[in-house]
């Protein structure tokens, strides 16, 4: 049962990493527009010219 004392911190750290990733993505503006990417899913074309 004492394995719980190891698992709890690991679980919390993993959860924390998830939240951190979400915060990072939000700060970079990935959630600013959630409607247009849904439309882009049905386009089947070449990606834009990369530079």
């Amino acid at each position: 049962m004492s394995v719980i004392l190891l698992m709890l911190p690991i679980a919390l750290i993993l959860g924390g990493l998830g939240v951190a990733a979400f915060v990072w993505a939000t700060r970079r503006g990935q959630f600013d527009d959630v409607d247009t990417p849904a439309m882009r899913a049905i386009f089947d074309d070449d990606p834009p010219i990369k530079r």
Partner: protein
Amino acid sequence: MTIKEDLPRSPRRTLASARPQVRCAHCGLVVPAGLVEDGAPEQYCCSGCRTAAGVVRACGLDAYYRLRESTDAKPRPVKLAGRAFAEFDDQTFTRLYTRDTGAGLREVDLCLEGVHCAACVWLLEKLPTVVPGVVECRVDVRRGMAKVRWEAGAVPLSKIARAMDTLGYTPHPARDGATRALRRREDRRALIRIAIAGAVAGNVMLLAFALYGGVFGGIDAMWSGVFRWLSMGLGLISLLGPGMVFFRGAVSSLRTRTPHLDLPIAIALGMGTISGVINTITSSGEIYFDSMTALVFLLLVGRCFQQRQQRWAADALELLFSLTPGSARRVVSDGGGERVEEILCESLGIGDIVEVRPGESAPVDGCVVSGHSQIDRSLLTGESRPVSVEVGDRVPAGAVNLSGVLRLSVEAAGAATRVGKLMKLVSDAAARRAPLVARADRLGSIFAVVVLAIAGATLAGWLVVDASRAVGNAVAVLIVACPCALALATPMAVTVSIGRAASRGILVRGGDALERLTTPGVIFLDKTGTLTTGVMTVAEISGEELPLVLAGALERSSTHPIAAAIVRHAERLTDGGGLPTAIDARVTIGGGIVGHVRGQAVVVGSPAFVGGVLNGEGGEIVPEHRRAGERMAADGLTPVVVAVNGRSATVIGLGDELRDGAEAAVERLRSDGWRVRLLSGDHAGPVRRIAERLGIAPGDWTAGASPEDKLERIRTAMRESGSERGGRSVVMIGDGVNDAAALAAASVGIAVHGGAEAALAAADAYIARPGLGPVVELLDGSRRTVRVIGRCLAASITYNCLGVGLAVVGLIHPIVAAALMPLSSVTVLTLAYRSGAFDRS
């Protein structure tokens, strides 16, 4: 009067019915008969569609049409500005609106007109194919904006703008960069708060399950301690982080003495936290961190919904491309000759000469220095009749130039124009309107007091019976009484209603507008565009109908609204059979048009003009027609005489006609308890005609009202009805700039289809479909919504009573509390979702 025999006697019985309807190859709408080209492989309904389709095919982007079919979007014809967009290359523009992103690339945010479906997004994001030099174009469909990155040296921005315009998406620079950035930051912060609250709530709930198991099966004191301390730690993260929103709200509610739902929420969370910390440290008593963190999460989500609702109007403001154009054509004399340059309006100075071509809007308030024409001032006055102007006359910014090229000397530009000042009136009126305290907030305060009283009574009661449980039970009362469902009830019901209304073309800004629409008071209706179609039509005909076909043929060459009305009527008479061709048509501005059709001399114009032309040739206007013309003018219509071969044949009266169903809608409004009044900027004649048709008494209609007059009337009506203090509502329905201030000041301002952008920004609701029918729908939907809110509130209070009851008698436990909360929330959500408001029937 003789008419050649080859004209069919009864135009309706032609073989035109054999011709099938032709659809535009680009937008899918029906092509008007006059524009059908026999034998052409593709037909288009307008030059805009033709140009756009040309570009689409030339770049091999035909997949656009397939994509559009699959997204089921409604067809719309292409509207172009047809400008050169030279000001996009201006240094000021570059500095203000574009950014350098390195490696020779620049980036710009543009607001686009006409973006409404996935196919538009696809087409625009293919911009690099259409304009070499563009690196990327990313579209935000909800806000109608595009972020364009391009090689600054390879292609000028004006060329990119022209390409977008040609495809049908006229670009405008995105102003208000600072407001947008602020709102974006707030949105992001709200999302992060929800994320933290959600993560914590989930973890605390898992820990709580372990503790629940311990209740039934027994648990080691050590593990119980570990889980409790962890719950407290995590709980504090949520309550002191994202949860502070509620404490701040409660403090400001107390400070300003306005009731707010945050008050009982903060009491519950605060007492719960304190008692939870104490109990964890002393290892005794129950902790409720699981319920509280879940509460924080749910309530934050509910608020997020509420705030997103308010966004449509703010986003519509982004698209507030000026009612007056952002650029102008300045005439500069240098050396011996003249040069016309396109510049930003910001760069104009008083006294500059600006050129306005027919079909364009005046960009400034100015005085005519050369040219003569007729202008349409309906943007400001609501008057649909064109006004003649010549040298020395004033032209306001926003007026549409109808017939001839005008040169204006700038008297006021930008915010100093009449239109600019009106906009200031609008924003002032909107800011001054006191917010209506929502019913839920008022309930919340009563709730807080009642709960505190019950908790106090519980404490006192248990101190007598069994002092050890007194504090625990009192705190449990406070926690369980947290109005989670109460806080969710209104936002959920309102969100569902507003979402459904939006899919029916009725865009509502917020729940308070819906609430206000349920107390019938006074409705002020604007005439032009709201009750009437806003477009000139042939209202009365005195004489024969056939000459109108000839008149239509002649008027085809003019852009005047009167000409357009005659052409439409003539086309309807020939049933799509096409109008004959006119030869040597000559237009006299302000008078009429002369020419030959099928070998006959035709004159069409005002009675004065036609009379003059006929008398000069020895003909005349028949007295019967002259009397008819005078009668029509007195009635508020514009009389137009059609003369064939020297004698008047027909007199028609043109006016702005009532929309279909307007009379029925007004009757319905009356029977619902609203007092209907008419408020128009147009002349008394037309207004009286419409008022009489609708049964509106002379005391209830006003003509010739300036925007300031309208505002004053609304204010008076609101004072009389006590609207500020929650009495009967005063509703204003309008569509033009001249209604905007009144719309902002009224209890509920409703902007109607086809309205100016300023009206949209000032209003609480916008109806995208024409006619008054949707207004009746809006009123019905509001009533249903308020009823649903009532039902949700009742359900949530029932659950609260149940929980408090259990707490008072000491039967409560974290498990019970944890179960009650989702139960009540789900009940409220189900009730809200199954509301019948704005349903398709």
